[in-house]
């Protein structure tokens, strides 16, 4: 209960600070939109020259892309821990966090929230709805019930992987550039996983399970029955990845010694 209340308090404060710079929020959203338009331009242009990408039509590829943006935007809003090593370990902020009476990860995530990223969900949903209409997909009650656990599963996969990477900072104070690397790997999840070779498919499914963010759950809504098993596994995968990361984070906190004043 206290955790929820804290979340509401922090969100309230955050929104107040952002409202002071309203135009920044709008501009940020527009650039995010521009980025998606550029990426979609690629898909639109190449489908002038082919009718399918390893068995996926243009609208299906776009649908997956749009769906992916929803868990991705939520992840960007709540797991903004790219600079964890710099801001918390090297600058010693972690010592302050550890004195707070809630779980240290929760405290860090609250402080680093970036709620305006949630606007990306609108972009994603719009893309999804338009391509969904083009494909004539029926969206029944069952789909609606599964939508939320799928999205949460995807967020947890993404969040879990990056919490794990952030935790590495507890063991080494040298600068790690693994995060931007993983960020680029995560982009592989925007497209149907079947376009990759077997080794990469394996990695994206079982090691860095980014395929559970976009490809697998979206293919369920596209009525692709081949991967139903994987799609339904999405929430469980999310939980597994996230729980492992929490354990790793806690272990890191125990080992953490601070870097001196």
């Amino acid at each position, binding site marked *: 209960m206290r955790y929820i209340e804290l979340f509401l308090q922090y969100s309230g404060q955050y929104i107040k600070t952002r409202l002071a710079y309203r135009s920044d929020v709008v501009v940020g959203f*527009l650039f995010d939109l521009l980025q998606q338009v550029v990426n979609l331009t690629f898909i639109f242009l190449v489908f002038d020259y082919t009718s399918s990408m390893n068995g996926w039509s243009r609208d299906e590829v776009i649908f997956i892309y749009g769906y992916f943006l929803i868990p991705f935007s939520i992840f960007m809003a709540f797991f903004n821990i790219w600079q964890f090593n710099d801001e918390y370990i090297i600058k010693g902020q972690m010592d302050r966090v550890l004195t707070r009476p809630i779980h240290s990860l929760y405290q860090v995530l609250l402080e680093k929230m970036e709620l305006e990223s949630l606007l990306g969900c609108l972009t994603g949903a719009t893309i999804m709805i338009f391509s969904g209409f083009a494909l004539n997909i029926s969206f029944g009650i069952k789909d609606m019930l599964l939508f939320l656990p799928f999205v949460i599963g995807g967020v947890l996969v993404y969040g879990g992987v990056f919490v794990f990477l952030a935790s590495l900072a507890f063991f080494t104070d040298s600068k790690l550039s693994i995060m931007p690397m993983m960020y680029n790997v995560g982009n592989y999840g925007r497209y149907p996983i079947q376009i990759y070779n077997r080794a990469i498919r394996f990695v994206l499914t079982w090691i860095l399970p980014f395929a559970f963010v976009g490809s697998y759950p979206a293919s369920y809504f596209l009525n692709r029955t081949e991967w139903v098993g994987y799609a339904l596994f999405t929430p469980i995968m999310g939980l597994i990845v996230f729980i492992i990361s929490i354990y790793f984070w806690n272990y890191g906190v125990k080992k953490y010694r601070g870097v001196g004043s």
Partner: protein
Amino acid sequence: MDKYFVMIRMRFLTMLAYRMEYYTGIIIYSINIGAYYFLWKAIYGSQGEIGNVDFVQMTTYVAIGWMARSFYYNNIDREIAADIQEGKVAIELIRPYDYVLMKTAQAFGEGVFRFFCFAVPGFIIVSLLFPVHLPSDPFLWVSFFVSIFFSFLIFTQINLAVGLTTFFFYNNRGFMRAKRILLDLLSGLLIPIYLFPAWVQSIFTFLPFQSISYVPSMIFSGGFTTELVYLSIGKQLLWSVILIVPIMLLWKTAKKIVVVQGG
């Protein structure tokens, strides 16, 4: 002239101190090339050719495009914006050198570093990872190196011009971000220009952007005829001369109206 050479050298040495960061850069570029490699593979599917270009040529196009970017890329625009916003530009203006030339010299220093420590080793690694076809004709190699030099020049000039607009807009972070996103598309890095609809292509011929990525990548992947190679490099030369004009104009006006914020 001496002082600018010192600037080039200093920037090179500063970059050298941070070379570790660029090793991970090679991996990141490889990951990006990989993403487009698989996308193109799926797009080609069973087709042998798209627009007279086969899959190996396309892979070469993508790989060389990203590796060329690792050479010509710099953040001079953001550095200029920071100088202006932090008020440092006041000090820069009273120093005995030309600010714009000094920034260009720094960009050169960074370019030399990026070429030898990022692009060359990066390309060796990338050509081992992906089926890249190296041109056998020495003419293509020579014209490729000439054309990436111009890519660097034009990219840097655009950055200078965009950076200098900070004098007029004060906060132009948005403009710089839009430039970065659009440049990847308009320069032909993400998708070769010949795949755009004809009317878009004809607009692009009047813009400097395809000189940045499309021209060197096409030369390297063997997509241009000899005649077209000369023509494109000629256009690059022309653009690098034309672009001096807006930079000079911006700089002249900026010096007159400069308002130092803080500092």
